[in-house]
């Protein structure tokens, strides 16, 4: 079982990100279970969504408390809530931010060894999509950092979900994010 927790704010497409990931995983022949944490659905309010990935049927329905992957769609949440709670040792952290790990003071907050990718997903979305929606972009980063789903599966999930024009922008943005993180990984290797 591989467990993903996505943090963001109402309006950033947090729930859609979990859905897209589940569809991408399903298209690859695995089982996935995506579900939102059903809070108050107001624009700007903190929102959490989850996605479980497995080779087998997924039966458990508790919230994901010990994620293998954290996707932080809005870095301002890091100061507000303990988004890193329960992160598994050697887990993956993907953050949408134009700042560095030092500027975000991550060393004080993430207590376990982990793989990290920080990318300006909102800017990438604005460039390719014309809208500040970072959700699909971060799935491109997810694909690059974890290798759990290929970029092609993310792209096909995006194409299934959105109308052609919006889908094309999101696929371009996800691809740019994928390359950004691949370069980051190569630099650190």
């Amino acid at each position, binding site marked *: 079982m591989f467990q993903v927790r996505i943090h963001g704010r109402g309006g950033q497409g947090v729930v859609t990100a979990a859905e897209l990931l589940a569809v991408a995983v399903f298209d690859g022949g695995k*089982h996935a279970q995506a579900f939102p944490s*059903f809070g108050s659905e107001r624009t700007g309010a903190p929102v959490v969504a989850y996605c479980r990935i497995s080779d087998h049927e997924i039966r458990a329905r508790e919230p994901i408390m010990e994620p293998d992957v954290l996707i932080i769609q809005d870095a301002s949440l890091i100061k507000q809530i303990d988004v890193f709670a329960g992160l598994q040792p050697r887990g993956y952290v993907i953050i949408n931010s134009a700042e560095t790990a030092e500027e975000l003071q991550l060393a004080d907050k993430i207590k376990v060894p982990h793989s990290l990718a920080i990318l300006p997903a909102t800017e990438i979305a604005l460039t390719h999509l014309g809208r500040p929606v970072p959700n699909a972009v971060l799935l491109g980063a997810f694909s690059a950092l974890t290798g759990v789903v290929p970029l092609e599966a993310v792209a096909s999930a995006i194409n299934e979900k959105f109308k052609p024009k919006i889908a094309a922008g999101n696929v371009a943005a996800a691809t740019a994010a994928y390359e950004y993180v691949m370069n980051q990984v190569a630099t650190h290797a």
Partner: protein
Amino acid sequence: MLRQVEGSKAVADAVAACQPEVICAYPISPQTHIVEGLSQLVKDGTLPNCEFINVESEFAAMSVAIGASATGARTYTATASQGLLYMVEAVYNASGLGLPIVMTVANRAIGGPINIWNDHSDSMSQRDSGWLQLYAENNQEAVDLHIQAFRIAEEMSMPVMVCMDGFILTHAYEQVDIPTTEEVKAFLPPFVPRQHLDPAEPVSIGAMVGPESFMEVKYLAHQRMIDSAAKVQEVAKDFEAHFGRKTGGLLRSYRTDGAETIVLALGSIIGTLKDVIDELQLDGKSIGVVGLTSFRPFPYEAIAAALKGAKRVIILEKAFSTGTGGIVTQDVARAIEGMGIKDFTVIAGLGGRPITIASLRNYLTNAMAENIDRLTFLDLEIDTVEVEINKERALR
């Protein structure tokens, strides 16, 4: 076709495959996506023989459903929580008139305090309404139960509630095999009402019944509910023959062979419980789970058979009767009377409180040693409530 899809969308597509002729519903969370999906299918021409009637309230939704069903139309509606309570007067009339309406209840807590999240207090409040109540373990079963529900309803002339956990199932994306309209047609024949309103051949349905016959009419409803248990089983068997899936029916046992302790539960928590049972069995513990699909009709004999040989049964409930405790427990206790099985109740998940594997493991470990009270509220903040209880008592 196997799809990765939201539970609500899956149910909307399954209901559409049953070719309803009238759908009327009033939106309420967490049911909204289901009726949104169906209204879209009506609007885009997928259901050319179906009328989607917008109404101003749940009371109107059930009233329109009654009218539509009485004319012989296959009729569907959906609601949750306060919406179900608002339609209650008409809910009892639907069953009293023997109308085979199918209704989804996207299970949600009842206020006050207002709470939009999942538990079973809404459908449990309709325990005595004369409707069948079938509870889905996952979204595949939610889909399958709706298809089975129309057949059970129409063959019995009784209305059926399909209960699925709000948010936990309605808003979850998982893989679901949704039968096509053609496949469903081979399983679900066209609705032929026993009697219906027709200006060409006028009849009266629902005339007043006085003291001389009311008891007899109600007794017939009682007997019909008892008889419906066989129909629920028969339809599940035939569904399996058509679609190859063992869903629906009265109940399903999981790893209960020789188990000293058996947990009995309804709805989506059964999946989490199965994972916990697997863990506990790995540790050599003697424990299994019974998932109760049919709460009404209540399968006394099937429960007695499923629990035979166990030392204790733990009934996990997502609703309770204030001041007494478990609701399902009362019926289970009667089913196992004289069998020497001790019953315990755990109330869990009220108002959307997550039921975690860790809490279940801890509770069940204590339960196997009978180191628990007859009635437990899982993860209750006992210190907080005790302070409040003492304050309230001091003020009286």
